[in-house]
């Protein structure tokens, strides 16, 4: 792409003249990408400069949105703000900017700006049940984390909602309850994007609701629904975990060195179960900032008497040659066998594969997601900036360890990443041990069980 001869804009070096392309309005098609961006940014700066009441705001925005790491044309500070989001995302970024103003959240990120930026939980719109409000706060403050925990908490809160629900006159429970639940669900999603587990559970719940008998008295219908929710939790999570604990535990032999990453509730159960069976093994826990979830796993395992080693992700390369097996948890698993899990899991899996260490993913079948995901970019979630997560005593003052945004610094914390199926040796589910490429045959197997 070569710039048109008459355009005075020079990427990436010279300071930009504050003005428009001299030779009249040129069609956007004939400009290069850089030039189009220029134009857009100039237009937005002009727009932003006009309606903003607080004089400080545009400056703060401009200061925050300066020089981007990639080959965007560098601008002098006087030539206006340079939000560098890509063309179709500019509208979204602009509104995000407007709403967050001086709060200085991650509005200037080039990449990852297309999925949910963490927002402060807005005031509850409409009739939100207090249990749901409480849950949303817990989600947004990361007090409840982990796919299983979130799903169980959501379903438990919904049981309360259902019990407190009264069918309005001239309505049936099976039809109206869903409309009653929808704003509750949206409120939860606003706090934190829905996990695949929550999505699958809610979909099942909707199915049950729409299938509930119209002739049943209201309390009976509600009790039946709560019973179904309990059964779902029991069958798809609790009992599934027990089966996985046993199956995966058989893969741990005396003298093994097991490696795990961050904190998966299923892997924790597997390791505790194998230990209580009397197997002698040691565990290496790999952890990473900012969430440092591995510390909690470390305390649980070491109080159970398992010999543990704790290290951070960058140190993984030094210990991988000693490892016999890697056990990982998952947030969800896609039909092509790719595993969507805590950011850093992909690194662990790929490194293990390189060293011919078997990688075993422990995952219940309700985490199965029908879609296919090929990379970590298309769907992900950003963690809020700041040190919300680590509640363990730190060796240095918290402030020293927390990164703050600066005029030239944006902080990027994706929470999840995607492990390709080629790095995974086996997936342990409650229907058996399955190679990652055959995950799509699980619904077939489940169809017989359900």
């Amino acid at each position, binding site marked *: 792409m070569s710039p048109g001869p008459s355009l005075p804009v020079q990427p990436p070096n010279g300071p930009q003249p504050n003005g428009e392309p001299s030779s009249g309005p040129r069609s956007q098609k004939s400009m290069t990408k850089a030039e189009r961006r220029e134009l857009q940014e100039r237009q937005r700066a002009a727009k932003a400069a006009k309606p903003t009441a607080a004089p400080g705001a545009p400056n703060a925005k401009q200061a925050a949105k300066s020089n981007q790491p990639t080959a965007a044309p560098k601008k002098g500070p006087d030539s206006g703000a340079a939000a560098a989001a890509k063309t179709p995302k500019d509208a979204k970024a602009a509104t995000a900017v407007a709403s967050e103003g001086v709060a200085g959240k991650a509005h200037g990120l080039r990449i990852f700006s297309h999925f949910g930026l963490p927002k402060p939980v807005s005031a509850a719109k409409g009739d939100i049940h207090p249990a749901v409000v409480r849950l949303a706060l817990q989600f947004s403050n990361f007090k409840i984390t982990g796919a299983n925990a979130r799903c169980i908490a959501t379903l438990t809160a919904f049981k309360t909602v259902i019990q407190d629900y009264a069918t309005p006159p001239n309505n049936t429970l099976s039809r109206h309850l869903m409309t009653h639940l929808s704003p509750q669900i949206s409120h939860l999603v606003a706090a934190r994007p829905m996990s695949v587990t929550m999505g699958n559970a809610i979909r099942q719940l909707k199915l049950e609701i729409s299938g509930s008998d119209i002739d049943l008295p209201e309390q009976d219908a509600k009790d039946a629904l709560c019973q179904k929710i309990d059964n779902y939790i029991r069958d798809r999570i609790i009992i599934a975990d027990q089966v996985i604990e046993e199956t995966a535990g058989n*893969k741990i032999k005396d003298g093994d060195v097991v490696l795990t990453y961050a904190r998966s509730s299923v892997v924790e159960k597997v390791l505790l179960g194998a230990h209580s069976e009397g197997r002698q093994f040691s565990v290496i826990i790999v952890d990473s900032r900012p969430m440092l979830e591995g510390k909690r796993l470390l305390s649980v395992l070491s109080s159970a008497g398992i010999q543990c080693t704790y290290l951070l992700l960058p140190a993984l390369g030094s210990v991988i040659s000693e490892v016999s*097996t890697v056990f990982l948890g998952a947030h969800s698993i896609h039909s092509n066998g790719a595993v969507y899990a805590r950011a850093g899991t992909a690194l662990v899996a790929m490194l293990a594969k390189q060293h*011919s260490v*078997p990688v*075993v993913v422990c995952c219940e079948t309700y985490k199965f997601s029908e879609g296919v995901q090929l990379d970590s970019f298309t769907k992900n979630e950003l963690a809020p900036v700041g040190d919300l997560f680590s509640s363990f005593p730190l060796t240095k003052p918290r402030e020293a360890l927390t990164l703050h945004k600066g005029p030239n610094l944006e902080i990027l914390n994706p929470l999840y990443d995607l492990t390709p199926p080629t790095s995974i*040796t*086996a997936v342990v589910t409650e*229907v*058996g*041990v*399955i*190679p990652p*490429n*055959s995950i*799509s*045959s*699980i619904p*077939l*197997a*489940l*169809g*017989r*069980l359900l």
Partner: protein
Amino acid sequence: MSQTTQDSNEAIYRAFERLLEDEQLSPPLAAILALTELIVGSNAGTMFELVEALKAAAEVLKKRSSNPISLNAGCELFIAFVTLFPHESDSFAELKTELVQQGRRYAAEAISFRDKIAESTLGFIKDDSVILTHSYSRVVMKALLHAHKTKRISVYVTEARPRGLGLKTYEALTAVGIPCTVVLDSAVAYVMDRVDFVLVGSEAVVESGGLVNAVGSNQIAIIAKAANKPFYALAESYKFHRLFPLSQYDLPTHNPDILSLPSLPQRGSGTDSTPSSPALRATDGSPPSKTAVSSARLTMTAEQIARNPGVDYTRPDLISLVFSDVGVLTPEGVSQYLVGMFAG
């Protein structure tokens, strides 16, 4: 163990051995027939008792067999079949008779599985193919003999130490006029560029889509992959097993003795304290200075051979296709078949 249990264990094992004498029957089929005979003689009154008795018998066979994996596959298949068999008949005795009939019919039909496999393999063998095979496998023999009727093929077969079954293949092929040469196990890489594709039999095909076969198969598969030659495995469907080994050392046949290093006494003073364990004597190329190694053995002792594995595990990404009576499957297809069949 009570006398009756011991007797019945002996009985089943003897039945199994007797059935094995039939050349056509592979261990899993013989196991299925032996279990069928157990049903005939069983006085179980309920399905539960019967299944328990079958499971106990399967354990006995497994323990006394040197090569339990394929046996296991057959036993599990039969027990699953018995458990899932629809109980239409009112009397239990009728049910047992029905089961026995089904068992015998299955075994008879299973012999014909090899023909089916040979037929589907035929489509993949071009005229003038050079085929590499490993050790001795009944299903591979059938496929090669079938191909020989209509096409020209020549075969390299590995010696397959320590059992040396490759020579059995050599005899059989030469007898029908197929040009055949025995190749050293260590010369597989040397010959691979001359070969069009590799054809092996199997002890078991496992849930991951991988292959458990006589030791050496993994090596051949890796070399074939490096040389970009297709690696085909032939397996009857009763050899499909729900086992999932994560690595070689995760196989049920692996035990701490295999590949164990001897614990030698401390190296004392000078060279004449060279320990005289047989492990060192044969492998030591240069004779130690003082100890006379006049009669250095150039063949492995039985003890040394016992330290080596009998079967190995080939990963699914090294296998091109698995030919079976349920169809020509990719390794992923094998696990889909297994999940579909056994789950639920």
